[in-house]
């Protein structure tokens, strides 16, 4: 046992040694450095490691076909360790020391906010792939991520079409759910849903203006009894649904309690914006069947492009020798595909601009570049966001989503707050 352990430790040390030496051996002339900035340790590693994997896969795929504008991609991988100041430090390192032409990374909004000044200062370029709250636009960040109108509002459209009349807003207490719910509140009101049919509670300021809508629980919350009891009463009259922006971990106690209280997807479906196929792996699938999700990609999309992507990625996983890549039970999900799309968009932009210079690449991106990705065609917009297809899916016992509805070519709009006017106000 101990022998084995020391052996594998030795192997690890060796592997690490090689990986640090290797880049120096390559000729700097025909490579371009690309930064990968994700948490490989700490609580966020659960989600972010998958993005690192898919990025490495994409780099290999591109390099096998000749690289970007004739140069091979040389990834510089750093660990943000779920520590926000460290993210800023690592971003500095990638831009100032390694002089990366572009960086792919970040998951949480706070990590993005933390590195933003660094990118602006050094005029770097960050591709950000995870659904977010919007209300931000920087010339140094390209948001392949879903904006609120590419996830939350289409879900509401779908639920309204299904005859739902009451909406319970629930989320983890941080900026993405707070923003999304405020936008949704405005959106629901604009669709004629009365305030008393929106559950979860409101907070008003002194002037009576609503400044927060929905129920919030802290990270790592474990006790959902009270909230479930509230939902149970809320949904007693039927035609109700729950709009959940709960973050990864807390979904387990939430859904376990939900099922235990006898609430079902038929009676009162839950649409979750933070559960993709990857997160789904850790949830009790049986208790979730029929609940809804909304993303701009599902692994179950039946197109040749997606099939190729999924197969190639699984093939790469089997073949790869990169340390720390889990090979079994892997799935693909929206943030992964958006990372993948990001790399290809960047490649196309570089080739169009004929330069790796950030300003020129940005110009090319803003002019509009399309890429046929696994989730269909995506097109870059002037506001550094992406036009893409939106899918509503419902969960199945095997951890995949059955696609119920597709909205084609939805424009990514980061500034939504205040854009929806209540229906009654028009009277």
């Amino acid at each position, binding site marked *: 046992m101990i022998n084995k352990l020391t052996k594998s430790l030795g192997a690890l040390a060796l592997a690490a040694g090689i990986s640090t030496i290797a880049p120096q051996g390559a000729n700097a002339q025909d490579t371009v450095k690309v930064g990968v900035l994700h948490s490989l340790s700490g609580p966020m590693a*659960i989600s972010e490691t998958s993005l690192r994997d898919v990025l490495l896969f994409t780099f290999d795929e591109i390099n096998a076909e000749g690289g970007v504008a004739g140069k091979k991609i040389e990834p510089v991988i750093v660990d943000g360790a779920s520590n926000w100041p460290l993210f800023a430090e690592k971003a500095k390192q990638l831009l100032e020391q390694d002089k990366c032409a572009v960086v792919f990374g970040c998951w949480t909004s706070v990590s993005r906010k933390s590195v933003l000044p660094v990118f602006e200062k050094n005029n770097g370029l960050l591709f950000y792939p995870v659904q977010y709250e919007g209300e931000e636009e920087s010339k140094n960040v390209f948001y392949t991520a879903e904006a609120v109108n590419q996830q939350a509002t289409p879900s509401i459209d779908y639920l309204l079409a299904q005859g739902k009349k009451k909406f319970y807003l629930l989320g983890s207490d941080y900026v993405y759910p707070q923003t999304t719910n405020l936008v949704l509140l405005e959106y629901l009101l604009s669709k004629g849903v009365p305030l008393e049919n929106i559950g979860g509670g409101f907070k008003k300021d002194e002037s009576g203006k609503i400044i927060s809508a929905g129920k919030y629980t802290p990270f790592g919350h474990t006790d959902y009894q009270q*909230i479930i*009891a509230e939902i149970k009463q809320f949904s007693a009259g039927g035609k109700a649904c729950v709009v959940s922006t709960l973050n990864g*971990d807390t979904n387990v106690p939430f859904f376990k*309690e939900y099922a235990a209280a006898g609430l079902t997807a038929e009676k009162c479906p839950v649409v979750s914006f933070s559960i993709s196929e990857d997160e789904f792996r*850790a949830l009790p699938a049986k208790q979730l069947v029929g609940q809804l999700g909304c993303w701009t990609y599902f692994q179950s999309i039946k197109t040749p492009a997606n099939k190729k992507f999924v197969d190639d990625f699984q093939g790469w996983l089997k073949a790869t020798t990169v340390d720390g890549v889990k090979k079994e039970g892997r799935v693909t999900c929206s943030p992964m595909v958006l990372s993948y799309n990001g790399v290809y968009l960047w490649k196309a932009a570089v080739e169009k601009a004929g330069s790796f210079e950030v300003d020129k690449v940005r110009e090319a991106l803003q002019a509009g570049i399309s890429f046929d990705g696994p989730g269909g065609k995506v097109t870059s917009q002037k506001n550094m966001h992406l036009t893409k297809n939106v899918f509503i899916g419902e969960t199945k016992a095997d951890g995949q989503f059955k696609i119920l509805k597709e909205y084609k070519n939805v424009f990514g709009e980061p500034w939504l707050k205040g854009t929806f006017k209540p229906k009654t106000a028009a009277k």
Partner: protein
Amino acid sequence: MRKFLCAVILLVLCASGIAESPKEVISKTVLLEDSEEQAKRVGALSGANPEELIALLNKWKEGGIFIVENADGTKVAVTLDEDKDAEDKQTARRLDTGAVFGRVVAADITTAETDSTLRLAMKSVLDLAELSSPDLKRRLQAIETMGSEQDPERLPALLAWQAKETHSRAKRAIQEAIALIQLKDESDDVKIAACKTLGELGSIPSQDFLKTTAKEANEAGKAALVTAANGALKDIAGHVTFVNTAGTAFRGLSLGSILLVVAIGLAITFGLMGVINMAHGEMIAIGAYTTYVVQCVFGPGLELSPFGINIKLPGMNATDWLYDSYFIIALPLSFLAAALGGLALERGIIRFLYRRPLESLLATWGVSLVLQQLFRLTFGANNVQVSSPSWLSGNWTVNDVLFGWNRVFVIVFAIAIVWGVTMLLKKTPLGLLIRAVMQNRQMAACMGVRTERVNMLTFALGSGLAGLAGAFISQIGNVGPSLGQLYIVDSFMTVVVGGVGNIIGTVISALGIGLLDQSLQQILGNPVLGKILVLAGIILFLQWKPAGLFVTKSRSLES
């Protein structure tokens, strides 16, 4: 346009095939691509033989109907027999005729899927059929749905069934449903009577409908109806207050029990032995992971690769009651696993630090970091899935107050553990030794007690109890590498408030904190604020009683 034509043709087909049995209709419907059309057809099925229909639709819903392709490309709906042979071939039977279609493997067939639109349609058909179901739960659900849809067409069916119904809960539900439908009646008198009935029933689901009724009546200037509806709403609000109060009490009790279960191990290691074990949370995690492993062994097996060492655990592929019983096996095993972990920890580190409690805090924090990372390397950084056995996932609803089985179980479980620990400490020779050593180590040593061994066993006991807690927590929350961190602060608080070295104190403090937390949540409507107030309350409480609820008095004055 083309779609519309299709629909018309299909409708005509449907209408012409009146003589078709549900089996035949479903066989055809299954093959359709358009789920809205499917829904329409299924919706038309009502009135047919209910038992057969229920069985068929449920089979479809649960993925028991499959589609195979004939050689000519036409598709046929089939069911499968449970007769898998060595080549994984099964007999497929035509759904419409029951005739054998042939032997197929999984690759040949696709499951006939359902989506929410279709399931909604199925549900309404099933509801009607299920009104006569012998199963109370199904019957209740059907009644509830009918009420909430307020469809006057359903009224005769309900009234007819009301006379036949014998079960009290179902009777109440029917009364409620009828009243709800009557809210849509044309006569105001009927409406007022319905309001009264709903108010008397304390019907929570009817609140929204009553509000609508009151609003409409107000607009129409019907004062009597407005009064009746508002009166009913007031009655219901009173009932809701009762439900919330009772519910809060129960939830507080269950949260308290969870706190108790996670803290009782700590009450022993910290309370009796004075060891600050920051790795207590990780002992809980060991228990939870053990439960996971046992579950996997009962199910499909498990493959782990920590440090590149491959470990393969074969699975039993058990189903039904045998699979559900995995939890019974997991309980003692998780106790043992965590106890062994505790034993190793005590022998390896803690025994050197008995006289340096602050340092035991630090060293065990180091242990906690190492263990968390080991979990991560062994089981992956993701949470693992632990499913609840069916006998833990359900609930009793008494007078609208919800009693989840898992919650009832944790309360019973907590009582059992406290009883067990008390008995162990009071009635067994080991308990006597433990108490002797904890009260006066030197004295006990002088009297020939092997204090080293008692320490070891006591610590193992405390850790084992944490393991048991972990097994339980796997049923209500996440199982992941940082599981323990979620509970460590709470556990310490519970023990400190209860008074160190006192099991009864821990019990009372756990229940007190649980009730306080749930009450504050109910009152403030904000879980975070509630938690912060509880923490502040604890700090202030310790001002009043620095040594906790129950002080273990002693004459030894030097701390």
